[in-house]
Structure formats: structure tokens, C-alpha cells
């Protein structure tokens, strides 16, 4: 009996020990469907895929796939927002407060672009030489453009103060997760320019996809440089980069301006986000906010702007408007479709930058400016009848460029940045709602979470606009 007892207890103990010994692997069971950092940066294809993921963010309804543009348009002066509710109403009323998921999601998505780009940049050593330039150039472009889009919405514009020392946005150049305070607007713009220039220097001149430009080339970096410099009212640099993009000869103005947002039709896109039904549909928030054929549009125009934009029957772009498709709404029809390929910056804008910058610079560039604006005018009016004469003054060219910019880029979130840029340039308030271009509510509030994570984080003052 005693022997038996001893034997049995021993077996028990051995059994327990064997179980214990097998446990280290047993406890290493992560869920599937997730990759670790080591796994991702083990192959070039993964790193390429990570970059592809960022492209989809650019077309994402929470970020530049319509959200950035819609919130910009709400801050602008073309919309009738009296029936907007919730976050949209606050932003439309230029009294955005500390809470608001619509804004927070956009902010977060913008910074997710930046975080993923930083993640790639910090692990470039893992990328083989073949892919390194593209991986690096893309990541720098993504980081630069995202910082630029965000600083325009969350900070007072470049030119708000003489040294641009007004608070900008947190400048995230690493993947560190600590809270950081806001850099100045100058620091943000300097970094944006530096990133875009670095991107320009390493990105290829051709996407290698037969002229579709579904991935970044040096031209999208330069197009953004043109936009950034133009926003800074730095006309020489804006002209320089717009000029290089145009002279690359890679892009053509569409004969029909309606093909700019369409499925596969545009030749204008400097970077084009392709649509793949059921896999990736860029620009969803353009469609959901503006669409007016299948539903009442969320965003629609004031009578004032509607009359202004449709007042000239000769303008072919009048076809973009309707007040009968949904009675009671001054609708935009530009985005009345199920899907589109989204141009992330198009040649029309680049021509308009070169036109206005060229006129601002004067001298030899004025002639280029006149040719540029006439290209746009001839297309809009179906002939040369509205073209400026070869001897047009710089002021006339600037005026025409600004007018055509508003009409061409309607629904693209452009107007509010023009109110600010022109304000900074001339000191004039061109806002149809009468607000000074410097008023607090013209920019968005930061997500409150920034301050909760760091009590010293400086929020924007609110209100003060009409």
C-alpha cells in the first residue's frame, strides 16, 4: 500500500511538471490576422503594402476623400447651413467646440497617415535598395501633405503674423507616443516644405503605370510644393513648381471639365486614386455630402452663391448646379454618381496657381499667366470669347484667376483657404458672411483628448466669427 501510494503520488508530480514545462509556448498565442512589426518589415512586399494602405487613407471619407474638403466648405461662404445639425452645424457656424467626432476622426486619420509614414521612415533600413527610394519618397510625401492639410484647418493661416509664430499643430516626425505641444505655423510649413522637397528628390518621374499616376511621382510632390508656397503667398516658388509640373508634359487638361471627377476619365490628376468597386472607393464623402440625385443633399448653396455661379448662361459649368433636381435645394451635381476616381490635386489647380503666381510676379511671367488663364476660360465658355487679351493687366489676371478658381474648384473645399490667403495677402476680408479672415472660429478646435493627455496643450480660442 505504501509503495503504491508513493508511486501514484510520484506520477502525479511528474504529470504536473510535464504540464508546467510545456507552458512557455502555450502562452504565446496571439490572435491571427495580425502581423507583428518584425513580420511586416521582413519583406519588401509588406512595406509596399503598407504604403498602399496610406493611399487608401488619402481617398478615405474621413480624410482627404471628402472630409477635409467638406469641413473646409462648411467653414467657407458658399453653403446654406441652416439645416445642418450637430458637428456640421457647429463647424458651419464657425463655432467648433472641443467635442465632435466628425472633426476628431479627420484629425486622427490625418495623423494616422503621418504615423504610418514615420513607421516606414524609421524602418527604411529593412527595405531593399530596389524599393527604398519609392518607399522613402512616398512616406515623406504623405507626411508632408498630411501636415499641410491639417495645419490649414487647425491653425491660423500663414501670414497671420509677420513671423508666423502663431501656434500650428503638433509636428510628428517620429513614432514616439508621448504628448507633444504645437509647433508654430512657420515650423510646420518649413517641415512640410522640407519633406516635400526630399520626396521630390527621390520619387520617380513616372509611376510606370502607363500614365495613370496611381502612385506618387515627383510631380505630386512638386504640385503640393506649388500649393504650399501659394498658400504662403510665396509666388516665385509657387510659380516655379507649378511650372515644372506643367512642363513635365505628363498631364493634360481635360477637354470636358466634368471628367475631372469620374471613373477613369481624367488626364488632369497629378496623383489619381483609383476606384475598385467593393475593394476601395475613394472620395466617398464627396458623394455622401453633395449627392443630390438620389437623396436630398446634405450640403447645398446659398441663393447668393447659387445665383453668382449660375448667373452667366454662357458658362458651361452652370451644368454643375440645379435647384430643381431636389426642389428647395441649391444642389451641386458635380458628385452625382456612385463611384469616382479621385484626383489628389489636378492640373486645373496647377494652371490656376501658375496663372495667379505669374501675374503676381509680373514681368516675363505675366504672359504665361495670361495664356494659362485663357486655357481655363476657353474651356469654361466653349471658346475664346471671354479670354483675356494678351495685354491684360496683372490685376485683371489675378482677379480672373481667383474667380475661375472658385468656380472650377467648387465643392473641393478650396474657398475658405482662399479667404485666408487673400486676407493675408491683401488684408481684405472677402468672406461673403462678413467675418474677418483672422477670426477664431475660422479654424477648427483641437480634439479635447490632446489636452486631456497633456494639460499644457494649447487649445484654440473659439467663436468670434459670423
Amino acid at each position, binding site marked *: 500500500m505504501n509503495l503504491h501510494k508513493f508511486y501514484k503520488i510520484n506520477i502525479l508530480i511528474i504529470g504536473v511538471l510535464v504540464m508546467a514545462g510545456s507552458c512557455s509556448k502555450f502562452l504565446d498565442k496571439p490572435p*491571427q490576422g495580425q502581423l507583428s512589426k518584425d513580420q511586416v518589415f521582413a519583406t519588401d512586399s509588406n512595406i509596399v503594402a503598407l504604403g498602399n494602405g496610406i493611399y487608401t487613407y488619402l481617398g478615405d471619407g474621413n480624410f482627404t476623400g471628402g472630409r477635409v474638403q467638406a469641413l473646409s466648405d462648411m467653414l467657407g461662404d458658399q453653403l446654406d447651413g441652416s439645416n445642418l445639425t450637430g458637428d456640421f452645424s457647429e463647424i458651419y457656424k464657425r463655432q467648433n467646440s472641443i467635442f465632435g467626432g466628425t472633426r476628431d476622426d479627420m*484629425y486622427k486619420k490625418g495623423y494616422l497617415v503621418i504615423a504610418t509614414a514615420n513607421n516606414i521612415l524609421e524602418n527604411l533600413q529593412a527595405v531593399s535598395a530596389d524599393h527604398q527610394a519609392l518607399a522613402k519618397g512616398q512616406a515623406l510625401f504623405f507626411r508632408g501633405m498630411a501636415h499641410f492639410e491639417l495645419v490649414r484647418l487647425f491653425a491660423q493661416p500663414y501670414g497671420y503674423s509677420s513671423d508666423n509664430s502663431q501656434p500650428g499643430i503638433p509636428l510628428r516626425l517620429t513614432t514616439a507616443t508621448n504628448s507633444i505641444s504645437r509647433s508654430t505655423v512657420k515650423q510646420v510649413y518649413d517641415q512640410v516644405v522640407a519633406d516635400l522637397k526630399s520626396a521630390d528628390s527621390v520619387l520617380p518621374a513616372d509611376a510606370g503605370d502607363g500614365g495613370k499616376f496611381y502612385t506618387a511621382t515627383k510631380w505630386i510632390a512638386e504640385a503640393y510644393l506649388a500649393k504650399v508656397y501659394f498658400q504662403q503667398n510665396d509666388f516665385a516658388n509657387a510659380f516655379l513648381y507649378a511650372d515644372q509640373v506643367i512642363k513635365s508634359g505628363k498631364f493634360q487638361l481635360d477637354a470636358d471639365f466634368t471628367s475631372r471627377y469620374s471613373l477613369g476619365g481624367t488626364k488632369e490628376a497629378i496623383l489619381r486614386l483609383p476606384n475598385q468597386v467593393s475593394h476601395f472607393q475613394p472620395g466617398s464623402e464627396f458623394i455622401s455630402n453633395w449627392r443630390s440625385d438620389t437623396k436630398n443633399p446634405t450640403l447645398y448653396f446659398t441663393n447668393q452663391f447659387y445665383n453668382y455661379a449660375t448667373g452667366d448662361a454662357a458658362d458651361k459649368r452652370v451644368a454643375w448646379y440645379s435647384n430643381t433636381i431636389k426642389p428647395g435645394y441649391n444642389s451641386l451635381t458635380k458628385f452625382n454618381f456612385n463611384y469616382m476616381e479621385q484626383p489628389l490635386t489636378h492640373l486645373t489647380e496647377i494652371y490656376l496657381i501658375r496663372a495667379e503666381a505669374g501675374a503676381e510676379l509680373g514681368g516675363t511671367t505675366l504672359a504665361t499667366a495670361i495664356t494659362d488663364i485663357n486655357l481655363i476660360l476657353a474651356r469654361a465658355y466653349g471658346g475664346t470669347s471671354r479670354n483675356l487679351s494678351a495685354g491684360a493687366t496683372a490685376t485683371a489676371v489675378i482677379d480672373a484667376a481667383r474667380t475661375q478658381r472658385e468656380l472650377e474648384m467648387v465643392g473641393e473645399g478650396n474657398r475658405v483657404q482662399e479667404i485666408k490667403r487673400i486676407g493675408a495677402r491683401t488684408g481684405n476680408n472677402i468672406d461673403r458672411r462678413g467675418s474677418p479672415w483672422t477670426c477664431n472660429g475660422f479654424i477648427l478646435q483641437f480634439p479635447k483628448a490632446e489636452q486631456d493627455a497633456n494639460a499644457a496643450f494649447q487649445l484654440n480660442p473659439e467663436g468670434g466669427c459670423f
Partner: protein
Amino acid sequence: MRKKRLLARTPVLLCLLLATLFSYAQNQTVTGKVTDAKDGSPLAGVSIVPKGSARGTSSAPDGSFSLTVTAATHTLIFSSIGYGSKQVDITGDVVNVQLTATNASMNEVIVVGYGTQRKREVTGAISRVGGDKISEIPVPSFEAALAGRAPGVQIIQGNGLAGSGSVVRIRGVGSISASGDPLYVVDGTPIIADPFLRGNGGAMNQNPLSSINPNDIESIEILKDAGATGIYGSRGANGVILITTKRGRSGQPLFTYSNKLGIATYTKKLDFVDGPQWLQLRQEAWLNDGHTGYASLPGGVTWAQASQTNTNWWDLLTQKGFIDDHSLSMSAGTSKLKTFGNLTYSNDQGYLKNNAYTRIGARLNMDYNALPNLKISLTSAYNRGTNKRVHAAWDGGIGDAMSSALPIYSVYNSSHSDYYRTTTNPVISLNEYRRRQTDQRLLGGVALEYQPIHNLFVRGNYSIESTRSNDDQFNTPQLDTSKHTGFAQRSPSWGKNETANLTANYLWNPGEQHKFNFLLGTELQDYTRKGYSTDPITENTDRPFWENGGEYKRLRDSLLSAKVHITEVAQERFTFNSFFARINYTFHDKYSFQLIGRVDGSSKFGTNHKHGFFPAASAAWNISDEDFMKDIPRLSYLKLRASYGIVGNANFGSGLYYDKYNRGTNTYNGLPTLYLNGLGNPDLKWETLHNVDAAAEFGFFNNRLTGEIAYYYKTTTNIILNPGVSPSIGFTSIYRNLNNSKILNQGLEFSANLRIIDGKDLKWSVGGNIARNQNKVLEYELGPDAVSGGTNDTRIVKGLPVGVNYLVRFYGVDPSDGLPIWLDKNGKQTKTFSLDHRTYVGSVQPDYFGGFNTSLQYKGFELSSLFTFVIGGNIYENSGKYQFLGVSKKFWNFRKDFLDHWTKPGDISKYPRLVADAASYPGVPSEDQFNSTMFLRSASYLRMRELTIAYRVPRATLKKLFFKDFRIFATGTNLLTFTKYPGGDPEITRDFENSQDRNLSPNITYLTAPTQKTFVFGINANF
């Protein structure tokens, strides 16, 4: 991987196998009958255990028993709830015993983790609720029947959706982002009870507990302090709910049939103004804002149309639901083999049209005494819950009827040829949308109990919980007009939860006065839940997949074979590997001591903290047995107990401790995508709870008055927080244990039961319990808005309870202009609203809660009732603010209680002037930011939870009949509610976004459907 798992388990099986080979002994079968000493009636369920053994049997309903004992056994111990225990020497093959009612439950055997203990020796805080209490009332899910039954256990019953789950809090909540829900253990297996398996789809959290069959439950033990939950180590912090299912008893086969038939409706609904009144109020708001002419109406509705329409959406969406519940069980046993089987069907239609929860269940539990010292037990159950879902809350349906489905909107177009589709119309989805959620759960286990030598018990248990869940939706072409055929989708997931444990129990009695019980054990748990990489699987088809399983299989298999489209993915996976030990020592049968230690390792824990150690110590003193207490008059029993221990909370997701990337289900330009999906933290570990408990259990007047008073002091540290990071890192969450964080839960519990009249024919008893929990965040360093409960305005603030309401204070209405007067942070009146005025004004945690019951019996008649109550705490009506702004451009239904509003100068009113735009109140940015104490309410209520009238046919009459026992009853639940809460039903469990929301916002309502009120009739018959 699979091979390894098998290998890991091999030693357990090996040990058990070998052990069986060595067993031999001589046996004797003892039979007999147990009766009540008072009237000779048979006693069922009496525990009969050979002295020195832990394994025995229990008596059958006719009092008979049969037990095989070894030759070494000379004495049997008989014990039963409410009766004294008795030791009887075995003098022959037949032992007949009479037990005397003591009316004390002190010898009751109750279930503890990995074993049982006599109640007088229990050193931890454990509340027991009998299975009869669980199955007697119709509830959407079994845990709701615990409400008011156990002190310190707060149950907020799920809302009116069929099958919805309750919020269960044991002695408060000490977590923020980790779940505050208890661990559920069924027959020794920790089961999957996560209410967020399907997130918050359709404004309802899937409730895995609803598939558990209440008719299967023998008892529920709720473990509350470290003395009780310590044995569950890293998973004991939120308390443990042990569910023990019924097992066969010796004796002739006994069949039990019980049913319930009845109707369901709602407890309290909100009253809204009708169409004409809504229009009138809309016009009032329009003019108040300085507009002229007729007010604009939403959705293109004209005044002419609106004034001719007066739709009652609530009535269109509700019904009197039918409740239908049948259960047939069988218990039979010989000395060798005991069997319990049960078949159940139940259907709860609820009061929402097209909503129903149907449960079918089958159980087979068997115990086979293969050898006198070897018992093999099988525990198996299959349950299938089918939830016919409807839209609710923010997702539509009855939520629309309380929000944006206005009485001025039409159901059909003017020619009645189609639905009116331009404005909110929940009738469309009622008729044209169908959703079935089917949850199948197979829970099976095999246990071997072997006694190799005297007083040593080795038990090996392997169990598997297999779940399969399909969430099916179908849109008819009428709903989805872009599709010509209809649109079906299915979101499948399936899980496997395996648990294997091995315990050894050794009883050692060195001398008459010393009793030791050593327990040593190890446990492995491995859980995997899988789904498809692309979810849901969809198709344009004319029928839902549940009616067309062949088509679904074809589609799925074609997608699977192509591989690029879908693959199987283990979305959730975790393991636990544990070792534990428990020493119980009883001295003189008066002093009991217990030491527990458990080591838990888990795949959930970060690489830097893979294992944790959790110790607990507790003691009990049956002080009334001391000589110096003997002379205290009327005192029949007094026990003091205390415990201290460290337990953990590991109730959070897995794979959170490393940076994660996932492959996109989308492509970019046809090429694969990859996303950075979350940032991890290798230091992630369990939350740590220091738990102190002290209590006195008492009996007076010959135990006619019994009860317990308990005090506890619990502090949680290393609190897991998910949000509160800077969003400019690109993420808003990283799971981490917060430094310098501490939450206190401290409280008092009191429960008592008094048998006022205890005659032969007439019995009257009352009982009740009340608990006070003080919840306070002691240490916390983040800003006030860093953590919020979902979309609700509840917060975490140092010095205040978890889930404080953080709102602007509404002072009243200025009679001169009807504008609201607010209080700023300093309490100064202002008429300009600002989010900067927000302050801490209330808490969603109650001050007191509990229940009381009474039972009156006269001969065969019984009248019993249970009341539950909550005193103190707040409800925040998150949807109330929009209902008040209903006639603004928010365009919601307007509640009648808001009619007390300002209309002209000089009016003294409760609510301010109506506005057409919330921003017309100075400083209000938009209606979303209109959170103020205007919609903060007292949460106190008293509810008649249950009222039952029953009649049991006398035994004398039954003898002529086929039945051994026959009872008929009528039960009503939630019949009466007393509350000042204006927002309808004060018992609120809304849909939650995540565990943090559930912890912080239990009393926040957002279009929450009121709980059910039911009336049922039924019988219980034994034959």
C-alpha cells in the same frame, strides 16, 4: 499547434489512466430512506457522504438513497439545507435516518471554486441562490433572475429587447477600460460571457449568457471576496459566478414537467405629443427664433400633408408578446449510475413586433461509479438561442418611434402603393428587414474522480465549450430598392474553449480536533474564436441564408476555395496556464482557516509580465459555539469571518501588448494593403485588487431570524486604461496599466430572513438585503475628458465615483425671456452656455440597492413576491436632450413632460422656451453639446419584480393521481414600478460600445427600450 496542445494535455490523461489501474477495494452498498423527524415526510436532496470521504450521494425525492462504500467506511454523514447533520454508523445494508429541522443553513454544503465546503467552515463571502429562484420567473437571460436575491450583487436587467443581457456588478466596479463583469464558471468551466463578441451591432450587445438554460441550474454561488475568489487568481477581482447544473439522484426515475404560458408587454413607456400638437409646438419654436410665416418642416413635408397625418409609431411597432416555455426533465439513479436529462423549449416574443428569443436546450449529466473509488462524470448540454432581431435605439425601430419618426410622417404614400420613403419610416424595416442571430453552445465535460488511498481524491476534468454563432440579415427588394432580388448577409463566428484541470485533495485529520484539507491543482485553458477574413458574406439573393443554407454553403465554399477572398482567421485567442493550492484547517470545528495561492500565466499578458501570483488568507470563527456565548439568550448562531487577498482582473482582449498590423480587406490599385492597426505595450498585465472582507453571520430565536452583515474594502491598482493618449500619435488608444491609479470600493451589506409564522399549515416569512457601496477614484492623473463612457457624458475624476456625470448645471428658466439660466464653474448664474461651465454633478452609481421578499403559505397555497430597489444615484437622459429639442431642426418626437415650458413673459416653468435651433440659446454650439442637468434625474426606484400565486396539490390527493407533485402558479414580473423618473423605465441597460462604456455608463439612456413586464401561468409536475 494542435499537436502541441494535445501533448500538453497528455500528462493529465495519463495520470488519470494510470491511477485507475491501481484501484481496488472491497465494497458494500448501503440503501435507506431519509425522513423529516417532525412529520415523517421524505426528504429530498439530503447529502449523504461516507465519513472521511468527499464523495457521496444525495437522496431522491422520495427520500431514498443508495450508496456504495468501501469496507473502511463505518459511518455516514447526512446533511441537508435547513436540517442538522447527523452521523450514523453503518450497521447493515439498510440505514434509515430521520433528520431534525434546525432551520439553520449552517451545515449546508455549498459550491466553492474546485470543490465544496460546509457553510459553517466557509471563510469567504459567498451568496447562494437556488435554481428554483432562477427558473421561476420569465427573464430575458438567467442572470436577470439574480436581481434582489444576493446582497452586494447589483443586477440591472437588460432592456426590452428579447434575449438582452444584464449588467452584473459584484460589490461595485474597480475597472475603467477592462471589463467589470464577473467570471462565469459553469460546472467548473470558465465560459465565454463577453457581451462585445459582436460589438454593438444594431444597438444591441450580443448576450452569450442568454443561451444558458435556467431550467438546468441547480444553484448559483456568487463569490465576492478574496477568500472565495482567490482560487481564481488573475480572474477573481470582479467576483465569480459559479453555476452548478442539476445532476441525477438515486431512486426511481422521476420526471418533471414545467411550463409557463403568458404575455409580455413593456413596463413604462414614454409619452409623446401627437401630430397636431407637434406642429403647434414647432410653430411656437419657429416664431420664438424670430422667424415669420409657417415653420419649415423636415423632409419636404408640407403643412397640408403634416396636418392631415397623425401616425402613432409606437403602436405600429409593438404588440402583446406571447411567452411559451416548456421543460421536461428526468432524474434517475442506481448506486452505480445516476442520470439527469432535460429538454427545454422556450420562446419569448417580447413586446416588439418581429422580435423574439427562442431557446432550445438539451442536457445529459451522468455520474458513473465505475469502481467504489472511481467515479466518471459526464456533463453535457446543447443550447441554441435564436434571436429574431429588430432595429432598436439609435439603429431605428422602436428607437425611431422615440426619436425621428414624427407623428406628422406617413407610413404609406398617398395612393398606398408604396411606403412613404422620404422621411423616417420604421415600418419599412419592420416589414422588409429580417435578422436572425443564432447562438449555439455545446458545453461538455468528462471528469474522473479517483480515490487512490484513503482521504486522497484526485480529480481530472476536461471540458469543451463549443460555440457557433451566425448573424444573418436580409433586406427585401422593398428595403433595398437598388437591388432587384433582395440582399442576404451572414456573419459567422465559431469558438472553442477548452479547459483541462487536475486537482488533488487530501484530507488529513491528525487528532480529533484538527482537520486539514489540502488542495493542489493545475489548469489549462485555451480559447479560440474564428471567423472569416471577409465578414459578412453577402449575396444578392431572394431569400435569407437561414432559409437557404445550401446557397450559403455554396457561396462560402467558392469563396474559400479561391482563398484570396476569404480565409479562416482566429480573431480572438487566449490561453491561461495556472497552478493553485488551497489549505483549509479547522480546529475544534469552531475555527477555520484558509490559505490560497494561485499562479496564473496568460497569453493576454505582455512579454514583461507573463505570470502573476495571487495569494489570499481567510478565517472563520463559529463564536456561538464558545462556552462564553452559550448563555446569550435567543442567540442561536454567530459566526465571524474575515479575509484578505490579492486577486486580479484579466478581463480584457488578447493580443494587446504588441504593435499590430493587419492586411487590408481592400486593395489599392489591385495590390494588397497593410495597415498599422494598433500600438501595443509589452508591460501590459492584470489589474490588481487588494480585497478585505469582514462579516458576521447570525441566527436568533432558534434561527427563525438569520442573516449576515458584511463589510468590505477593495482597492484596485494598475488600472488598465485604453484611451487618454494624444490623438496626434495617430491612435486614440493604447492598452496600458496606469501608474498612480487607484479605485476604492468599500461597502456594507446586510441581509436577513425572518420566519414570522412557522406553523404546520401557515407559514409567513420575510427577507431582504441592502447594500451600500462607496465607489471612489483615489488616484488618477489624466484630464477630466480623457475617459468617457462611450458617447455618454460620464467621466473619471479623482476623488469621485467611476462614471460621474460631468455637465453644465441648469439653474432654471428666466421668466422674463424664457432663456435657460446656467451656473458657471463657480456657481455664478449666467445665461451664456459654455462647455467650460461643466462640473461634476452626479453619479451613475447608486447609494443603496437591494431587494426584499415575502412568502405566505397556507396549506397548499403560496403567495410570494420580490421587490427590488435602488436608492440614490443618477440617470442621465442622453436622448432626452434631443427629445426636448424635438421641435428644433433636430426634428424629434417631443415628450409630454416637456410641455411645462416657457411660452410668454412671466411664465414660471420647468423648461425654457422652445427654439428652432439649439444655438439660439446663447453659447450653445449645437444640440449635441446641450448636455446639462436639465436632463439629469434621480435614479431611485422601487419595483415589484415578482408576484407569484401558487397552489400545490396536497400529497393525499396526489396519491390517487399519476403525479408525485403538482403545482400550478401564476407569476407577474415587473408589475409595478415606483419612481419619479420622467423618462420611462428607470432600470436602464442601454447598448454599450465597449467595456469602458459599460463600466462608466450603466444608467445612461439613449432611446433604450423599456424592460419587459410579463404575466405567465404555468405548472410544475413531478411524475
